[in-house]
């Protein structure tokens, strides 16, 4: 068994950081459009329970079932994203309240548990879980192999997603327009950009990506649905967006850091090293607060990427 400490922690950081990254990437795109979505946790749980349901009800080859389950879980979470978009963009309700309501309504005590009980998905291990997938012969490469090439399909997909999202945000015209919508919807509107359309699309994508994170929990981490199984991952994802300065690459690094710190604390304990695990567990949150303090300065806000109109509903007549 390969028990090199560094490799164990690195592989674990990637495995447990991936669902955080997906949810955070979704939140990042939503926030870049100027919409704050605090419903991530609820959307992850809806995605998770729907994905688990799909994996038990779809027939076919393992690959087909896995892909369909991911797709169905993602679509369900996207629908919840659409609900948030309707509330936040069309009805222009307070986005904090709407997001919290969605987390309560869809989350650990609400709709996801309700679906789990009416669909009878709880405590039934998935017959087609998302498994580790070795890339060619690369998984046998020393050191890098087990870390980078012995992961599951969603992890590989997340690496594609981070590149695509970075190019999209910073190298394309649409991405530029998206950022304009988040910075100053008035200006964007004056330039002829359809603010409502941009915000709708990115809130729905945000929900969908939260759903991918949720499916990761119910089909990859423990391929069994358990009520409330994300256990606050949605909130960590929201913190990660801030931690990553609203940039996909830094958010990915942040997600791995969160995963690594938790793994480090547990791994050191398992090797009977005397450490205070509580402090390590709290470290990511302390760092998030530090970033928030940094951002409170006007200069930092301008330089570090916080969308200026985040959480502010846009109304044309209010110009």
């Amino acid at each position, binding site marked *: 068994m390969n028990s090199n400490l560094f490799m164990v922690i690195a592989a674990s950081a990637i495995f447990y950081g991936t669902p955080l990254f997906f949810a955070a990437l979704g939140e990042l795109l939503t926030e870049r459009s100027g919409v704050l979505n605090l419903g991530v946790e609820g959307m992850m749980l809806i995605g998770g329970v729907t994905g688990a349901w799909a994996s038990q009800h779809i027939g076919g080859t393992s690959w087909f079932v896995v892909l369909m389950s991911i797709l169905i879980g993602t679509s369900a979470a996207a629908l919840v994203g659409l609900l948030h978009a309707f509330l936040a963009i069309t009805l222009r309700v307070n986005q904090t*309240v709407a997001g919290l309501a969605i987390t*309560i309504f869809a989350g650990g*005590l609400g709709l996801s548990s309700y679906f*789990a009980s009416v669909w009878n998905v709880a405590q039934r291990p998935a017959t087609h879980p998302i498994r580790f997938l070795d890339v060619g012969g690369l998984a046998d490469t020393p050191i890098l192999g087990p870390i980078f090439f012995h992961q599951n399909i969603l992890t590989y997909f997340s690496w594609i997603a981070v590149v695509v999202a970075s190019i999209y945000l910073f190298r394309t015209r649409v991405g530029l327009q998206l950022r304009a919508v988040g910075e100053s919807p008035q200006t964007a509107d004056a330039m002829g950009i359809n603010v409502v359309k941009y915000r709708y699309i990115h809130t729905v994508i945000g929900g969908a990506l939260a759903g991918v994170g949720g499916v990761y929990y119910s089909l990859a981490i423990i391929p069994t649905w358990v*009520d*409330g199984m994300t256990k606050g991952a949605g909130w960590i994802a929201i913190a990660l967006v801030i931690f990553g300065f609203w940039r996909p690459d830094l958010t990915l690094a942040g997600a791995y850091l969160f995963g690594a710190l*938790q793994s480090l604390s547990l791994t050191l304990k398992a090797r*009977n090293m005397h450490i205070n695990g509580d402090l390590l*567990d709290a470290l990511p949150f302390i760092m998030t607060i530090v970033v928030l303090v940094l951002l409170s300065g006007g200069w930092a806000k301008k330089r570090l990427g916080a969308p200026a109109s985040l959480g502010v509903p846009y109304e044309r007549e209010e110009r």
Partner: protein
Amino acid sequence: MNKRLTRKWLPAVAVLGLGVSLVACGSSKSDTASDASTTDTAAATADTMASTTDTAAPDATAVGSTSWDTNFTPWKDGKPVNCKPATGPLKAAWIYVGPINDGGWTQAHHEGLKAVQAKFGDQVVTTYKENIPEGPQVLTTIDQLVKDGNTVIFGTSFGFQDAFVTAAGKYPNVCFEFETGFKSAANLSQAYGAGEDGDYLAGMAAGAASKTGKVGYLAPFAIPEVIRGVNAFTLGVRNINPAATVQVVWTGTWFDPAKERQAAESLISAGVDAISSAQDSPAAGEAAKAKSIPWVGYDSDQNANFPEVWLTATTYHWGVYEVPRIQQVLDGTWVAGDYYGGLDDGFVKMATFGKLVSADTQAKILAKQAELAANSGSQFTGPIKAQDGTEKIAAGASASYGDLMGMNYLVEGVLGDLPKS
């Protein structure tokens, strides 16, 4: 302006209201007799095992043979509390820390509710609240349940205890059943069982399954009942392999599936080749399955879900206690006291053995099970040494009930510190 404000806030309030109301229906259901028809498969399989033991050990107290009340002691000066409503059916409520399908602790308590409902039909209306966070705020949940007319309330997580003590003073005519803690009141009972007897037996299975003598253990919090479990398990492991060690990792959570799996992986990567998890979800089994490491679960029979790695588990059967207690309420004879069930009355049972437990090991475990059923806690007969080598229980002496309930040290053979509280 006024109109616009209304337009902005009304939907938000409406959504919040919708959310809250849905939470209410999602988390609180009143079971009727017809709902309670689900078969308790875990209990059924464990029953089969218990009956095997009956034949294996005819001389000792047969497992599951004695009545629950041999394990019940009323509080000193305890008087009957009448908590039966003058008219209408008795209303009883359960407050859970987790979801009813957690595959562990809460699910086991919910089986107790179902047993009560099945037994009493329309004489009793049962209600439950799930996913209630630990802490003083549980008092508002109790207030609500009392307001709804519930006169028997079961609290099922350690962190609810202080609120239950407060509530017992506030509502003297409500019967409070606490599972599990240690504080008492005229109308507050405590119930638990000798999980440490099952943990010892499970430890024997793990000790036999480990080739290297390095066993791992996932423990939630360093409270006496968990410490007792770690110690009993370790003694069981060392019964089979005296040189074996048990590496413990404190997870700091009862229920967090992802963290539980991650913690199990950390133990496996550190080189243990058998693992036990005292967590509320079967997540550790997933880590064990991925690396083909024999696994002892907790409070739920997962043999069917993890046949490749399953050893056994300690399971609790709350109906053994809760059903007769409700009967006492109906009879007007309910007295608060302390219940400590065991293998003898069927409150504690071992889950089915997985295929990794050899016939030889099974025989050893069953023989020890008969011994523990007759003499619960006897695995803590001295000499018992703490990790640092100091003697805690002298040679030949047995641990008192108080020693067991207040256990605050790890025995020799356990690796890992007790977290400082």
